[in-house]
């Protein structure tokens, strides 16, 4: 099965050991960081940059390519902010290899061809050392051939459908199996769910996710899928769907509804009397950002499976949430993808410092095995397939538009973008 991995390579045992070492070394942390920085600054530019990237003795240029305008802006703003926060923090610590990060921001305008044009500009004209960007699968698919052709490096923050692996992309969100399998197991054991109703927006991510969910439900959990329905992006009338749900009486509604449709979906569920005290609903597409629009009163009590929730109780996350609110206002919320966006610049910094070079090929080669212990989600590590080892968590929606974390996977889940038996 896809989750097996050699025990000596097990990241969680490493994790525990390193955590202990880290705690012992805590008082010393300040010192090596400073000396590292001093040493790094001495490496001449000719050595750290042999591929004509925009790197000088004092500065390194990176690109940021998200939708600041258009329908996706509401989702991507969180990623833009989190990446900027991470870059500011890195610069305040002295930058990467002694060089301050300068960001060139481009607007993909929720338009896939524009993403392609702007990525060409960032890679060919600006010679960006790496790019943090994209959100939808469509935008990633549009820029992927360009990153591969021009040998750029993209940090992609969104949880997505998998079925992809590129030497030019680091995927800091979960691929589908990481988000789905453990969550379904939890629903099966804790909530005794046997019959599932799958709902999705009609494009590649929900369809692939539900395909994987169906295989897992039927083959592993020996449960039943009693309905599978798709609606176009932006769809707002779910009445007929709700009737079907009422007829099918599933133990679990498994919802992969995306974006603005969520608002109507949860409001109409409530209006039809399908509320959390009568019906178990698990979603993989609602984060704190979506809850802003849906409203706690329409969704409280339902569950979501993510790797990160803003309410996560650990010191890393406290620091992160505090810094984020200090920069973007006390009302800002942080969703799963926002946190994954925050990981990008840090993972890149660690890989560059390990490679002692900005060259994309070297950074990509150095990336597998890179750990980030200060991750708000706890601990992450880059797998050889350029995805992250991460945990899955179940959060219950609360009235104030947040999640109460009620379960988490005991171990880090190995990323498996091409899951065998789930195709």
């Amino acid at each position, binding site marked *: 099965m896809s989750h097996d991995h050699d025990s000596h390579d097990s990241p969680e045992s490493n994790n525990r050991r390193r955590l202990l070492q880290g705690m012992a070394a805590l008082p010393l942390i300040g010192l090596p960081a400073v000396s590292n920085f001093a040493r790094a600054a001495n490496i001449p530019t000719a050595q750290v940059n042999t591929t004509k990237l925009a790197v000088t003795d004092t500065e390194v240029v990176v690109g940021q390519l998200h939708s*600041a*305008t258009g329908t996706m802006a509401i989702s991507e703003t969180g990623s833009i902010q989190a990446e900027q926060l991470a870059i500011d923090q890195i610069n305040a610590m002295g930058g990467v290899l002694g060089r301050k990060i300068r960001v060139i*921001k*481009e*607007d993909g*305008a929720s*338009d*896939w*061809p*524009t993403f*392609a*044009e*702007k990525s*060409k*500009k960032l890679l*060919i*004209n600006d010679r960006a050392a790496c790019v943090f960007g994209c959100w*939808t*699968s*469509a935008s990633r*698919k*549009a820029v*992927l*051939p*360009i990153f591969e*052709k021009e040998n750029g490096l993209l940090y992609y923050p969104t949880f997505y*459908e998998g*079925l992809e692996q590129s030497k030019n992309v680091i995927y800091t969100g979960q691929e589908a199996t990481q988000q789905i399998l453990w969550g379904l197991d939890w629903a099966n054991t804790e909530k005794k769910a046997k019959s599932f109703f799958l709902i999705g927006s*009609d*494009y*590649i991510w929900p*369809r*692939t996710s539900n*395909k994987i969910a169906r295989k897992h439900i039927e083959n592993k959990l020996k449960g039943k899928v009693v309905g599978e329905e798709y609606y*176009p*992006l932006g769809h707002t009338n779910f009445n007929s769907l709700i009737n079907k749900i009422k007829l099918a009486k599933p133990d679990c509604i498994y919802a992969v509804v995306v974006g603005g449709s969520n608002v109507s979906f949860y409001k109409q569920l409530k209006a039809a009397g399908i509320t959390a005290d009568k019906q178990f609903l698990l979603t993989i597409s609602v984060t704190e950002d979506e809850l802003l629009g849906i409203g706690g009163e329409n969704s409280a009590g339902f569950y979501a499976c993510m790797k990160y929730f803003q309410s996560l109780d650990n010191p890393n996350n406290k620091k992160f949430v505090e810094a984020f609110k200090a920069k973007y206002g006390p009302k800002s919320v942080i969703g799963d993808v926002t946190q994954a966006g925050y990981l990008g610049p840090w993972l890149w910094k660690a890989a560059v410092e390990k490679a002692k070079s900005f060259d994309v090929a070297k950074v990509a080669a150095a990336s597998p095995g890179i750990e980030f212990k200060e991750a708000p989600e706890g601990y992450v590590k880059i797998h050889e397939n350029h995805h992250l080892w991460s945990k899955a968590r179940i959060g219950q929606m609360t009235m104030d538009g947040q999640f109460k974390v009620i379960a988490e996977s005991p171990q880090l889940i190995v990323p498996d973008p*091409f899951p065998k038996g789930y*195709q």
Partner: protein
Amino acid sequence: MDSLKALIKRYQLGSLLLLTLLLVVVLPLTLDIFRLNLVGKYLCYAFVAVGLVMVWGYGGVLSLGQGVFFGLGGYAMAMFLKLEASDPESTKIQSTPGIPDFMDWNQITSLPAFWVPFKSLPLALLAVVLVPMALAWLISFAMFKRRVGGVYFAIITQAVALICTVLIIGQQGYTGGVNGMTDLKTMLGWDTRTDSAKYILYFLSAGLLIASILLCMWIQKSKLGTLLLAMRDKEDRVRFSGYDVAMFKVFVFCLAAALSAIGGAMFTLQVGFMSPSFVGIVPSIEMVIFAAVGGRMSLVGAVYGALLVNFGKTYFSETAPDLWLFLMAALFIGVVLAFPNGLAGLYESHIKPWIARRLAARKAGATPRTPAAPTPPAPPASPMSGSAPPAAPAQA
């Protein structure tokens, strides 16, 4: 030499020569390959704008659905390229190797029948032109034979654009859905992503565009062109003179569709992917704006319009990522307010008389007569109106 001059003057080729010079000599010499590739992309939109000059400026038929034809042409090209990119060797990790990746993701296990012809380049190239023309014929024949025109026709074309987007997105197993068709690399083994390929494709686009303009100029000069103009201004009179007005409209609409489709195919080749975001209502209206900004009566002006608007889009969004949409809007409003007949109108009303005056002043000693011929009258309707004939009985 004199006869050449006369030929240029007779067919008003001066502006076209200037454009050719700009596209073929000046831009390739001054721009790096990245920018030139962008201009190549803009030129693909110019095909649509040229088509719109014919169908809207001359034919008086406003189409708000040219994106459909652009998209169909682009998709036909993309299907061929996608099949070439999906050889069994490079798709061996799929459940069904040898079919495009998005089909595999959507649990399709064999190549659908309508994809099969696109394995052959000649058939694909034919489809680039013929499929959009067939659709254009169907729409326009059904509409114009029933004398549906003006605003109503514009609304129908919008509906067609919407239907096409929904269809493409909904049938993602066959079309690639929202993602479109991506990762197109080679054409008959020729890597279209290299710098040399980009140069070749750029010159090919420029060449095809100039050829298209010449064809349209020839049509304008012919009796057909005169009839089109007459039909635009007084449709009933042309009909009463015994002409089948509907068929002329059908013809010019199909012509515009074919031109758009060629633009779409060149776009796919240069940009390396095709997606439904070129097909919908918004891109279709943007294409009308290219023609409006350039001047809807001027073929050459339309090219400048497409270049200017797209250059503005690129430039503003690079320099002011937070404000660029406002700047674009200001550009449209500014151009339409200040020069109702677009860039070409500006040239006709201000620059041309100025040049003529300067020439006259210089030649004043040699030839006493004034060479400034009266400029042709500006087209009557404002550029954004559907240009329904003023005397149309349908207007209540």
